[in-house]
């Protein structure tokens, strides 16, 4: 598959990285030489220096033979223009990154496909949806839904009073039979590598564990994890940019009481006008007195989505120290993102990662129905459809020669999520969710082809 990516910023780079593992043929276009040098020395891709809206540059990238054009520069207009041009010049499919979420909500009316853009991706929109999903499942640090929630991936940090701390996976399974969840990845406290759990892997305090759950499993997990459950009602949002205002609007449309802090007075006044049910505060979110005055101790969740990653992280830590149950920070810097586990913030949101994952999922439409990279882990979750010719078809899971660094999390059969163990027989038409370390993804793929 030939893919052209315009924009070698963080989204473009991350996307190129994800795709280059798949040994796709990738061309990266950018105006900035340094970005390109960095990309070409780190990844196995072709780079072209030039303007993505220049016909000559697009032709040089052999646009007429390409399967996919992805516009992910920081400018919405360049992305849209470049995608339209690419389509006219022969690209089979185009994806444009946008920042105005109106384009997505009004997509049906506008008909972007008509003038050549097949898919619109708005990182802000994705981030805002991600925040809402995490709030709904606030006991968990990450979550990802397959088939509208038939199976859900949830990540959890084990506290001391979690029922299965100190037990091995096998022991835990004996103590709690008939359960609707299974662990698929573990990251030990303070380490940066990922373990795919086997029967003899123990659960330790402080572990970040990724579970695959079928319907109802999330509640069981909450009770067993020893997390106190209370409803989230009061939310404080820091930063009234695109993400902040959209999140505030959606949240107060549902059931939450929302307070929004914005530093720029003009922006704050505009927000107060457009969001009647949100209490808009004009002030600096790093000012602890302001946070105290606005009753941070009574807040159930604190969401920091200003432009500055540092502000977001620091204010979340401040909120955490005031006893806020759930803290989320928007972090642009990938290096910070990797530290999230030890920082102590419940969830980190990276809109570029979200955008890259979302685009990646679009590309892998085929045998792989959905996939996501586990945040700051070296593992990915993939969803495969089983064909009658697949190697794995009509076999019991225990009989399959599955690599040790991959695990089947669950199976969706006829829209129903099943936690599949060794004595489960896989049939044609099943959708199988697999968690795999990056190095074995290709091995896993062969099992399904």
């Amino acid at each position, binding site marked *: 598959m030939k893919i052209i990516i315009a924009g070698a910023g963080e989204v473009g780079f991350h996307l190129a990285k994800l795709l280059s593992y798949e040994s796709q043929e990738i061309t990266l276009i950018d105006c900035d030489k340094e970005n390109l040098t960095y990309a070409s020395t780190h990844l196995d891709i072709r780079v072209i220096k030039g303007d993505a809206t220049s016909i000559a540059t697009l032709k040089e990238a052999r646009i007429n033979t390409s399967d996919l054009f992805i516009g992910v520069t920081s400018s919405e207009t360049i992305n849209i223009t470049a995608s339209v041009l690419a389509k006219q010049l022969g690209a089979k499919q185009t994806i444009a990154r946008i920042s105005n979420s109106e384009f997505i909500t009004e997509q049906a009316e506008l008909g972007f496909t008509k003038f050549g853009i097949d898919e619109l991706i708005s990182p802000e929109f994705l981030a805002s949806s991600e925040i809402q999903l995490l709030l709904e499942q606030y006991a968990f640090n990450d979550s990802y839904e397959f088939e509208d929630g038939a199976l859900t991936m949830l990540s959890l940090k084990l506290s001391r009073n979690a029922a299965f701390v100190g037990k091995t996976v096998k022991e835990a399974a004996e103590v709690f039979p008939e359960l609707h969840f299974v662990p698929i990845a573990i990251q030990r406290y303070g380490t940066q590598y990922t373990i795919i759990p086997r029967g003899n892997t123990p659960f330790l305090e402080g572990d970040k564990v990724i579970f695959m759950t079928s319907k109802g499993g999330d509640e069981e997990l909450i009770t067993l994890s020893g997390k106190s459950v209370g409803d989230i009602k009061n939310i404080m949002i820091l930063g009234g940019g695109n993400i902040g205002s959209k999140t505030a609007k959606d949240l107060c449309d549902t059931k939450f009481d929302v307070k929004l802090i914005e530093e720029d*007075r003009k922006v*704050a*006044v505009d*927000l*107060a*006008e457009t969001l*009647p049910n949100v*209490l*808009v*505060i*004009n*002030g600096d979110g790093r000012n602890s007195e*302001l946070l105290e*005055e*606005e009753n941070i101790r009574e807040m159930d969740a604190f969401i920091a989505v200003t432009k500055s990653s540092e502000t977001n992280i620091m204010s979340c830590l401040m909120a955490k120290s005031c006893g806020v149950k759930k803290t989320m920070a928007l972090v642009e810097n990938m290096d910070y993102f990797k530290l999230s586990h030890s920082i102590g913030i419940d969830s980190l949101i990276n809109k570029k990662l979200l955008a890259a994952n979302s685009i990646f999922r679009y590309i892998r439409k085929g045998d792989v129905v959905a996939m996501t990279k586990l945040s700051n882990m070296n593992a990915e979750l993939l969803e495969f459809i089983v064909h009658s010719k697949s190697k794995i078809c009509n076999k019991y899971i225990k009989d399959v020669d599955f690599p040790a660094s991959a695990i089947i999390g669950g199976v969706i059969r006829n829209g129903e999520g099943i936690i599949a163990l060794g004595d489960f027989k896989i049939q044609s038409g099943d959708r199988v969710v697999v968690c795999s370390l990056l190095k074995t993804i290709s091995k896993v793929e062969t099992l399904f082809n």
Partner: protein
Amino acid sequence: MKLNYKMIWHFFGLLFLFNGGFMLIAALVSFICKDGVSVDMALSGLMVLLLGVVTMVATKNHTKELSKKDGYIVVALGWLIMSLSGTLPYLITESIPRFTDAFFETMSGYTTTGASILNDIEAVPKGVLFWRSLTHWIGGMGIIVLAVAILPLLGIGGMQLFAAEAPGPDSDKLHPRITDTAKRLWLIYVGYTAAETLLLNLAGMSFFDAINHSMSTLSTGGFSTKNGSLAHWNGQPLIQYIVIVFMFLAGTNFVLSYYMFKGNFTRIVKDEEFKLYAKFILVFTVIAASVVYYVADIDASSINYPMSWGPGESALRHGLFQVLAIVTTTGFVSADFTMWSPFLVVFFFGLMFLGGSAGSTAGGIKVVRHLVLIKNGFLEFKRALHPNAIIPVRYNNKAIDGNIVFNILGFFILYMLSFIIGALVFSMFNIDYESAIGLSASSLGNVGPALGDFGPVNNYSALPDLAKWWSAFLMLIGRLELFTVLVLLTPFFWKKV
């Protein structure tokens, strides 16, 4: 900015023509009624017409540009010019021989106040009575243009709020679309007047009384052709109910009436000012009617109360009628609330400050201003708890600019100050305190009947001459939303820098 005097005078010439034309209509009525003053009426009309023609010809070479400052002068002095020229029919026919009295009566007419100095109204020739009601009606027309199109441009007292169709206050020139909007609303105004005339006539009022009372109702004026005002028809509840309905309509924003005729009812139901206006009327009527029914000593009043439809209905009707008459600042009288119970005196005195809806012909502070002030006052508590929060006042789901809230606060304070100064000046003429505060509130709010010696069954003829001029001044500033007139008295207006 240099004032465009030529254009201003040209405009006044137009007003003279307008006024003279209406006088000729009154002369025609006088001729039809054979009251013997038709020649005098026609003479006054022709004099004013001539004045108009001369003024317009003399100012023919004007530049067609009105600045904001010119706008203030045109509005404030325009009303004065109309009132001055409008005295002619009274003076020439000698129905009101003294100039002070004639000026008071005309000003009371054009400002749609309805306070009168005529002791025996029924003795006045019909043509003059028609002219008297006509001054109300013309004043009402002026107010509609003023409220819908001009005041929003001048940015007075938060009037931008309900200027649904007027352009933003950023333009310095008066907008030509004023005529479009005004024409549509005038059509409604004329239509309502015709409808009420027809209904009153059908309900048993003579055609002459019907048309006079209709003009008086729609302009929320209050001049009647009978000495007893609407109490004359206390034995015919149907007539009073028709007047009640039209008083309510006249106190409603005419733009909403326009939406009603276009079939856009959601717009009306969602209008916050209308909702509050309707609620006010409902609640105050229940209070007034209950007091009238259970407490009031009906025999204490000189007015006759035949209870043709039973005492309960009578209490309800008089409660509703008087509440509407005061709130919409019409000032018709069906009952003498000052005699019924001390509570009702204070109650109705309070209502004089309410005023009808903005964009109607009613005077007073106006419901929308109360609404914004109440909301803002309530939000102050929230602001006290969240000193850094930005909490705008919302009106019809839109956030109001902080400046408009300030404008309204300023208006309210100026109104109250004018009321107090007004009452103080009246008391200097040896008028007792109840009458003085009643006169001040009533004049300023363009209501009509005051309290004490100038209550619903009395009139203003007993006022000393100077007090009459003072009352007329209060009527004018109250009618023109204070700022329009008072700004002319500030040094800022006349300074060149």
